[in-house]
């Protein structure tokens, strides 16, 4: 479904140093790692928003790296993404934000209205259509972002810190919502989160990233048993260690 093969990207210094990662169809993959590991940049590369220096990224069997703008847009239409800072369009209401991807696809207004209503209900924001994003709390904005990402029922969903700054209960609800999306839509999800204690139990697989490389990928149990001191320290949250 998503196949990343030896991807490199440098700015002033190397950020991605040969990342290889696979996300299987209909699975929820947690992408974790210390700050500055390159997780967000990797997600942007998968979404076709950052051009990498070398390597291959295959989305649904099609190459994203160095593809034409047209091919990129076709592949992007199969991806829903939530950005780290949500990136809701602040010149639109909540309803318009969620409806926007459907309207651009030329869906009938009645169908758009109904699906927006259902999607907002799904994320616990029923009746929020006319509100403005600036009136919402951080958690509500993130849930609107999740609804917008999923409104077209894309086969791939990329979530960058969907629970950042949320209280423990709302965080657990958000991750439960992602699990529900995976089951309801059958989508492949890659989720970045710093809250590994709440993320890992809902994942099918985990990939640990450090200094631009994937250190380990597998189930939570497999990754915990990997025997890498960096992974052990990161997952256990210890102060002493190589990090």
């Amino acid at each position, binding site marked *: 479904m998503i196949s990343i093969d030896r991807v490199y990207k440098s700015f002033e210094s190397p950020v991605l140093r040969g990342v290889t990662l696979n996300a299987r169809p209909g699975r929820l993959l947690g992408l974790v790692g210390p700050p500055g590991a390159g997780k967000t940049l990797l997600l942007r590369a998968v979404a076709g*928003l950052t051009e990498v220096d070398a390597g291959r990224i295959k989305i649904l069997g099609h190459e994203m790296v160095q593809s034409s703008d047209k091919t990129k*847009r076709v592949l*992007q239409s199969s991806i829903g993404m939530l950005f*780290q800072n949500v990136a809701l369009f*602040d010149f639109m209401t909540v309803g318009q934000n969620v409806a926007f991807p459907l309207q651009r696809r030329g869906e009938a207004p009645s169908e758009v209205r109904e699906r927006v209503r259902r999607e907002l209900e799904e994320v616990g924001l029923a009746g929020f259509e006319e509100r403005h994003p600036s009136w919402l709390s951080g958690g509500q904005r993130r849930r609107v972002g999740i609804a917008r990402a999923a409104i077209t029922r894309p086969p791939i969903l990329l979530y960058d810190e969907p629970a950042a700054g949320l209280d423990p209960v709302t965080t657990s609800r958000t991750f439960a919502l992602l699990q529900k999306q995976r089951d309801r839509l059958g989508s492949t999800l890659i989720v970045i989160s710093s809250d590994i204690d709440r993320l890992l139990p809902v994942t099918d697989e985990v990939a640990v990233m450090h200094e631009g490389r994937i250190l380990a990928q597998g189930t939570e149990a497999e990754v915990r048993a990997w025997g890498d001191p960096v992974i052990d320290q990161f997952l256990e949250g210890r102060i002493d260690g190589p990090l």
Partner: protein
Amino acid sequence: MVRFSGRLLVGLGQGLVGLVGAIGTQAMVLSSAIQATLRGECDLSELRSALVRLGLGSIPVIVSTAVFVGGLMVVQSAPLLSRFGAESYLGWGAGFGILREVGPVLTGLMISGRVGSNNTAELGTLTVTEQVDGLRALAIDPAGYLVAPRVWAIIVTTVVGTVVSMVVALLGAAAAGLFLLHVHPATFYNGLTSGMLSWMDALHGLAKALAFGIVIATSSTAFGLGAKGGPPGVGRAVGAGVVSTAVLIFAMDALVSITSRVE
């Protein structure tokens, strides 16, 4: 002395590189707007919205400025015209200045200040808050949705605004002539249409307006989309965009004036 000259040369070199880079970026903005339009991807509802927001919203400020500028041209020239008994040339003098120079330059600067800075701030905010990336992630090309509608709306606004400004400034000049020099509007009109002015003078002004419109649209868009570093970065982009656009307006003014000067 040698060290100072060296620094001066380095500064000039960096300035030149910056200027060439800015012009190159603006050419890319114009090219992407043209390409998106030719592909039929220019978002028409955004274009309509930009024309109303940027264009209609600018008319009051253009009209109020033009009235005063037309009047002030007469106030400044009144003593000279009276001394030589040349009041009948008032229409020609005001028309020549307004159509060829003051109308387009003043409108260009007003639109740069109001519309250009607004465009840079809006696009800068969309850029630093990842909303432009949000569009791209939804498979929407920002060139068709954001760039092309704004570029065309600003160019149309500048050209139409210049026409409005010319007409209103001439009316202001005629009114000032009547009240300050007691020049009858018919005399003013005769001076304007005596044959010393032609449609070429108006076209010269419109050519400048078109050039200024392209400069304002591409410069403000390029600075907005290039904003970095959160809200302070947007502020920096707006400041740099306004200054750069003003310099380019005067450069284009000189270029058009030199290439189509009165023989």
